[in-house]
């Protein structure tokens, strides 16, 4: 079975929000749209978004690190939001594992959003139905597009290629290889939701060098320290 998903590389995400805006741009006029805003130019603007980039600081000054953290629906393999839906509006596609909402069946009771530990579902204030990341379902399944464009808008927009898209059940896909070789992990594994989306951790390249590997104790060019004086037998004194 295919399970499409995103693999997000926290090591290269620069927090530019290009995925956020491209997501909104594509989806507001697509299958999942409109994603309306309320008071967009006023003091208290708000609106529907499927994708957000958050920023965290890890550690204590001066040993801190900034982590930009894109967050959208993780398309869980055991989605807790789907079985709780009373109308069957929430479903997981059999053919590619994408979790979707049928906007014509949803009654806006918000129960699925309570049942998602990640908080990635939003009630659209205009249509009053639950919306969420569709993995750009209308784009990735569009056979009229060339293969290279059959990817979610956020993936195509990312300037640092921090977002990989692919089938995480296919061991040879770019996404699976990245998860396997670069330490891909799931969020909140304690709930057994088995998210399909994975995150790649921040990485640092360090060479391990010990002090004595940098400085020879008997460096003949060393001007500061006298050469160790020979005491007792040396190799020259040994007769063969």
């Amino acid at each position: 079975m295919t399970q499409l998903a995103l693999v997000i590389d926290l090591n290269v995400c620069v927090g530019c929000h290009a995925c956020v805006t491209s997501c909104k741009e594509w989806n507001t006029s697509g299958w999942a749209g409109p994603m309306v805003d309320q008071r967009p130019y006023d003091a208290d603007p708000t609106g529907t978004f499927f994708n957000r980039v958050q920023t965290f600081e890890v550690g204590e000054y001066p040993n801190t690190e900034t982590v930009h953290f894109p967050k959208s629906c993780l398309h869980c393999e055991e989605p807790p939001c789907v079985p709780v839906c009373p109308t069957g509006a929430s479903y997981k596609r059999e053919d590619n594992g994408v979790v979707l909402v049928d906007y014509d069946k949803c009654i806006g009771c918000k129960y699925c959003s309570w049942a998602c530990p990640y908080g990635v579902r939003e009630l659209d204030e205009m249509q009053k139905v639950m919306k969420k990341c569709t993995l750009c379902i209308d784009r990735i399944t569009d056979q009229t597009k060339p293969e290279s464009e059959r990817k979610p808008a956020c993936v195509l927009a990312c300037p640092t290629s921090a977002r990989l898209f692919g089938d995480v059940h296919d061991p040879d896909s770019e996404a699976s290889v990245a998860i396997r070789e670069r330490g891909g992990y799931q969020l909140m594994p304690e709930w057994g939701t088995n998210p399909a989306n994975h995150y790649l951790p921040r990485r640092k390249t360090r060479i391990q060098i010990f002090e004595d590997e940098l400085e020879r104790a008997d460096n003949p060019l060393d001007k500061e320290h006298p050469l160790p004086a020979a005491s007792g037998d040396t190799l020259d004194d040994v007769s063969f």
Partner: protein
Amino acid sequence: MHPAFSVIFLTTLIGAGQGMFMALVTGQVYSMANLLEAQDNVRFYAMGSLMALVLLGGGLVAAVFHLGKPSYFFTRAWRGVTQWRTSWLSRELIALPAFMLAVFLYGLVHYLGWTGPLFVIKGVIPVDASLIIGTLGVIMAVVLYVCTAMIYASLRFLQEWHSPLTVANFIFFGLASGFTLTAAFSAWSGVGLVGFYGTWAVVFTIVAAITRGFSMLRNSRIKHKSDMRSALGIRHPKITQCSMGFMGGSFNTREYFHGKSPATLEAVRLFFLICVFALPVALLAASNAMQSEYLPILAFVVQYLGLLAERWYFFAEAKHPQNLYYQTVG
């Protein structure tokens, strides 16, 4: 969680309605066993059923306002009965109308006086239509309590709710308010059952105080499974959010935060502890001593107001793990 008044009114109103119906059937069974005097079909049982039905209908109206648009009640809500295999909410949407039908039929049978025995078990227990419908109705009432409570108790990562105590609380709060209301109804209509229902109301109120006490104790010591580490997958004890990605708020900041101060929460808790438990017990005891017809009514009003506060607190005290992602506006 952000307490929604539609759900607060729904759960408290139908809880009292179910409790009242169970009180009526209990009274009927007791009078069959000659432990209580028999009551008038129309004035007591039919009117009582009507009152229970009004409460249940009020709950249903409140539930309509929980939908995205009230019009979805007519256009889409019928689909809500389709997912009963997996969804407790769907099960509730079946159990509530089914129970309302049972209450309606129970009241109708009494109103029309169809209470002649249909058959007699072992020559001592005369079974009439109202007893059959009443017994089925009581089972349905219990099923409905379980469905309503399991909507909350089944959400495993809302750890404050994920406990059998949630089910116990919904049952005993419903029974307490329902029996108190039936005591008030008896006092108002001059039926000599105030002491009987009042005693049971006090018993259920005390049991509810015990189960709610345990759940508050449990919640005060709760250790949340999710933290910033598991939310982000970064192994460091100190992770602070600089930005949640927006500044103007979103569904995430509106739906899962109650936005009230700890002092307000504490005040609400004190209010419901007094109004749900202490005052109704005192008022029912006083009414027993003074034979007042108003004190049981006052007891119900006070307890119902307290239950509204209790249900508000029930939502406010639950901490959703998604809140970990929404700590800092920026």
